[in-house]
């Protein structure tokens, strides 16, 4: 097993996608392997910029990632994307359909997209996602993006794994009360109101109200986007760059 891991790590370092893919599977399937792998790669961590993207179902997270990756690739940055979708609590199965929004990057050598199912235990998946992010970091991806569904208590605590957390909401999602209950406004570093073409003013007002009431010291920037029409994405990217300077890489990652 130890030898396996060494061999796979050597393969992944030389750019073999199959090896990296196999390591990701080991991390996902077996906690002991995950710890071993993390140990082996820990000296080479800390270079990547890690972005978490979370928010209400269907708000346009994957479409936004598609467009953001376009900008990043334009700047020559390599990107790893991890998309987490829920497993069915009844059967344990899942349909993993996020990568379908990122088709334009399928053939790009600088982009690696991996889908993961939550597999019931959010504690377990959090560790698997954390180590998967570390793998992309160790193998030279400049930016790592993690998409998770869910806002509030359900879902994984993405903020512990990444440097910057982007919350994506869309008009029609809910009112101030729901925003307040969800609590995530407190941890978002940036808030995107996507699908602004459908009219974002009401949601923007609610968010502003909540942020004014909250005890946060600094208020996160709120940006309106239309991922589908590629509008506002440059602004969003700019904010992500701004945030990068604010978070010290190793401070937040709890390793």
């Amino acid at each position, binding site marked *: 097993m130890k030898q396996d891991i060494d061999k796979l790590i050597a393969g992944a370092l030389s750019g073999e996608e199959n090896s990296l893919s196999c390591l990701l599977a080991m991390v996902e399937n077996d906690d002991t392997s995950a710890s071993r792998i993390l140990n082996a790669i820990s000296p080479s961590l800390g270079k990547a910029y890690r972005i978490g993207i979370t928010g209400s179902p269907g708000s346009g997270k994957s479409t936004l990632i598609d467009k953001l990756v376009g900008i990043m690739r334009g700047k020559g940055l390599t990107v790893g994307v991890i998309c987490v979708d829920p497993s069915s609590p009844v059967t344990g199965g*899942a*349909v*993993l359909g996020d*990568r379908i929004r990122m*088709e334009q990057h*399928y053939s790009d050598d600088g982009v*690696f997209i991996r889908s993961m199912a939550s597999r019931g235990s959010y504690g377990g998946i959090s560790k698997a996602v954390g180590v998967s992010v570390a793998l992309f970091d160790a193998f030279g991806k400049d930016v790592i993006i993690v998409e998770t569904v869910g806002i509030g208590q359900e879902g994984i605590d993405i903020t512990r794994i990444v440097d910057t957390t982007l919350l994506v909401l869309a008009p029609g999602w809910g009112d101030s009360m729901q925003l307040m209950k969800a609590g995530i406004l407190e941890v978002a570093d940036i808030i995107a109101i996507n699908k602004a073409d459908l009219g974002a003013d009401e949601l923007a007002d609610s968010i502003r109200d909540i942020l004014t009431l909250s005890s946060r010291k600094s208020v996160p920037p709120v940006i309106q986007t239309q991922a589908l029409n590629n509008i506002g994405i440059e602004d969003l990217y700019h904010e992500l760059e701004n945030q990068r300077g604010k978070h010290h890489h190793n401070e937040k990652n709890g390793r």
Partner: protein
Amino acid sequence: MNRPIRVLIAKPGLDGHDRGALTLAMGLRDEGMEVIYTGVRQTVENIVRTCSQEYVDVLGLSLLSGGHNYYFPKIIDLLKEKGLGHILVLAGGIIPNEDRESLKAKGVKEIFGPGSTISDIANYIRENVRGEDS
């Protein structure tokens, strides 16, 4: 296997979405599998690369408009070339009887016509995926 089986459902060629492929994706999910659905009109290269990145055990190919004699062998050859020859390749859709044998000879492991049920397909997969660590 003590983890969910991972399946990629892919549509090469010029087809749009079809009920069959979507029904299969949902059916296999209900059988406890993790199903990745990549969208329509995929190139051979993109399908194979997705197999690699997603670490799938099974590739289900669906094609209604003909072209299976062209695409399926190309995909299987490229899988082998990329070190992914262990992936179980299944085909669905409308495939004339006279083509079945030649496709199987080229490495399509099984062909499921319109009359197949989800549980047939799921059972076949469970019996034929490679074991762990092989």
